[in-house]
């Protein structure tokens, strides 16, 4: 009788133990496959049927109407929308989990630019060529570059984004074209007792964006086309020096070292900054926020560079096909639908998302709706994607840590750049 009392818990424990040992046999490696890539990539190329589209939170409310329209026209190949969380890290992890589990239910997904190389190198993305080819004619060149890894197209550009220079039109009649010009205009800021320039300098992804912009605008680069570290150059040092000197001289206010996008936007809207680098989303808020003191006075311009427009860091998303999908022909058609002119136009008018088709930037209707479109076009035309490398987490950490230390004056620019080079090399050497 007493033995029965413990039999149940012991049995439960035993079953648990058994299931774990049975199923969890291999703990080694990173759960990736190399040979599997070519195998899976060749499957289901002609498959047609219902598919699932996975994307992070649809803040712009464009996905559902688009899918409804598709479903009406394709009753046998309906698309289901799987909406992920709002956080980029969680979106990334969710995709990784499902790829590792070879989940056939994740057919087509929206991926952040910085994940494309990683996913492609792990053999999870279908190369968009031959039967599943997608045409990239008419698309902004920098966006296509961000979707390419190892000279193969692994995703199609879906929506774009670039850095914009917001400035006080009432204090500065003509926006600066170069960085040096902007620094000279800082006298105006001092006269008005406000900060001169701020971007995003907190130690997070935004710092990589800003540091990359500084480095790329000065003619340097972080990694070369084959993904190898290439930051140890005099141009890169010059670019980083621009930021470091501006911070030292007070042209970048001291508290800006803690700014992410929101803090900078709030400072600009409160009238505390003369120049501010941020994404296009600020336009609407600065114009309509109750607390915005600059709604009638702010203007937008491309980022200042060395001799002309600077190289902004490309933002946005690409749409990719999973190698594990069972209905790849449907997915290919869906991707074509998303990258079509009609959908791209809808992205702009309905969602205020920058399209990837070049000609839409000169379209009159869109420019009326999004007055910053011409500025954004210059920005994206001159944009450089953040380092295209499968080791992006390690590379962005290398950039952030060293740029932050340089900004704070904890190491010289030379030391920061050579440490950055060494760290990126070490990441790629694994």
């Amino acid at each position, binding site marked *: 009788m*007493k*033995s029965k009392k*413990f039999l149940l*818990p*012991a049995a*439960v*424990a*035993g079953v*648990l*133990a058994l299931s*774990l*040992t049975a199923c*969890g046999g291999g*703990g*080694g*490696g*990173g*759960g*990736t496959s*190399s040979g599997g*890539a070519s195998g899976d990539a060749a499957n289901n190329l002609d498959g047609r049927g219902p598919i699932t589209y996975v994307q992070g939170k649809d803040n712009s409310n464009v996905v559902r109407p688009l899918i409804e329209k598709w479903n009406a026209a394709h009753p046998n190949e309906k698309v289901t929308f799987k909406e992920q969380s709002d956080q980029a890290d969680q979106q990334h992890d969710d995709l990784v989990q499902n790829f590792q589990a070879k989940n056939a239910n994740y057919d087509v997904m929206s991926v952040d630019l910085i994940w494309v190389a990683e996913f*492609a*190198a*792990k*053999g999870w993305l279908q190369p968009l060529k031959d039967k599943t080819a997608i045409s990239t004619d008419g698309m902004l060149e920098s966006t296509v570059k961000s979707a390419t*890894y*190892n000279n193969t197209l692994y995703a199609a550009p879906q929506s774009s984004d670039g850095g914009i220079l917001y400035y006080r039109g009432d204090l500065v009649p003509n926006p600066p074209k170069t960085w040096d010009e902007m620094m000279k205009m800082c006298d105006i800021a001092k006269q008005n007792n406000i900060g001169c320039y701020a971007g995003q300098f*907190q*130690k*997070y992804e935004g710092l990589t964006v800003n540091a990359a912009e500084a480095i790329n605008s000065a003619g340097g680069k972080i990694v070369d086309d084959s993904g*190898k570290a290439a930051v140890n150059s005099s141009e890169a040092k010059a670019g980083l020096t621009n930021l470091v000197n501006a911070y030292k001289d007070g042209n970048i206010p001291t*508290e800006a*070292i*803690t700014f992410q996008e929101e803090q900078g936007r709030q400072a600009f809207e409160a009238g505390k900054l003369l120049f501010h680098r941020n994404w296009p989303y600020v336009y609407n808020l600065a114009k309509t926020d109750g607390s915005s003191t600059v709604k009638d006075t702010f203007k937008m311009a491309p980022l200042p560079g060395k001799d002309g427009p600077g190289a902004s860091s490309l933002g946005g998303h690409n749409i990719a096909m999973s190698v594990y999908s069972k209905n790849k022909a449907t997915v290919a058609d869906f991707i074509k639908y998303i990258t079509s002119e009609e959908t791209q136009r809808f992205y702009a008018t309905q969602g205020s998302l920058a399209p990837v088709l070049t000609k839409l930037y000169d379209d009159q209707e869109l420019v009326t709706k999004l007055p910053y479109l011409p500025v954004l076009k210059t920005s994206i035309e001159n944009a450089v994607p953040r380092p295209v490398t*499968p*080791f992006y*987490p*390690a590379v962005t*950490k*290398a*950039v*952030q*840590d*060293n740029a932050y*230390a340089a900004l704070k004056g904890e*190491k010289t620019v030379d030391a920061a750049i050579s*440490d*950055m080079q*060494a*760290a*990126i*090399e*070490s*990441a*790629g*050497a*694994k």
Partner: protein
Amino acid sequence: MSTELQKPDATAAAGHTMPSRESADRKQLTQGRWAYTLLAPSLILLAVVIIYPVLNAIIMSFQKDSGLDPATGFFSEGGPAGFENYTHWLLQQCTAPGGGSVACPPGTLGAQFWDSMGTTFFFTVVTVAFETVLGFWMAIIMARAFRGRSLIRAAVLVPWAIPTAVTAKLWFFIFAFEGIANKLFGTQILWTGSEWPAKWAIIIADVWKTTPFMALLILAGLQLIPDEVYEAAKVDGASTWQRFRLITLPLVKPALMVAILFRVLDALRMYDLPAIMTQGANGTTTLSILVVQQIRQGFNTAAALSTITFLVIFLVAFIFVRFLGANAVDAATSSGKAK
């Protein structure tokens, strides 16, 4: 009556009687068997949920993370790594592009290992020191009889009951640039944005949350000391400080050491507060945060680091129990009554 003594009934609550030697041995044997039967489910369950994953982690730590095959551009399995993952952390050895190893450059996770170790120990020492001193003070107050004592005791449980994640967000809000901390002190400190303010912000939040818990544990120890001892000392002319030093401290020491042991081991594992308040930035990366960051860059290296972490914690626990007399096992098995 004599039959009762001979009955080897292990379920009888007869553990405190003194039977004859023969039946004592038999009793211990049957009790032993019975005890292990009762313990089996717990021990098996613990083995499954702890030992199995940990063994798995140790095995993983001797594997290499998958690397990029330069020919194909795809990732391929790492293969065995020997002690490479461990030297990566402990000796700061990172692989160089051409093969061989080089000291881990700043900007890699590997370079942060010793800093994190230092940060973790710093937090541990400082928070436990504050919590012990403040907790002792609170315990002494709560040991006195006064009206409203149960109100204080209830209030003291509130910080303990609030989930750490909520505490972290709350203090994050208090220490925001425009938050109430700056307004109260009239300062303009970027609490979570600069190094030492960030460290102190985390320490303050942790001390707030955990001091009441320490106070309760110490109070339990204080309440074991009979009043007569104090009375006798007063009669002998001992001052307050002497009474504290010669009576309170020694008698409270067992309970105090156990409380300190628990708190130290908790603090060494600190994750929630720094992860939510500063995401580990500005020199607040603890070992646990470093492991979680590494998971995203390479599992097997992360497994090596987490193994190192728990070995460190066990070492500290061992030192406490062996040399500093923190006998948690005794505390659990003693009846809680004063000697």
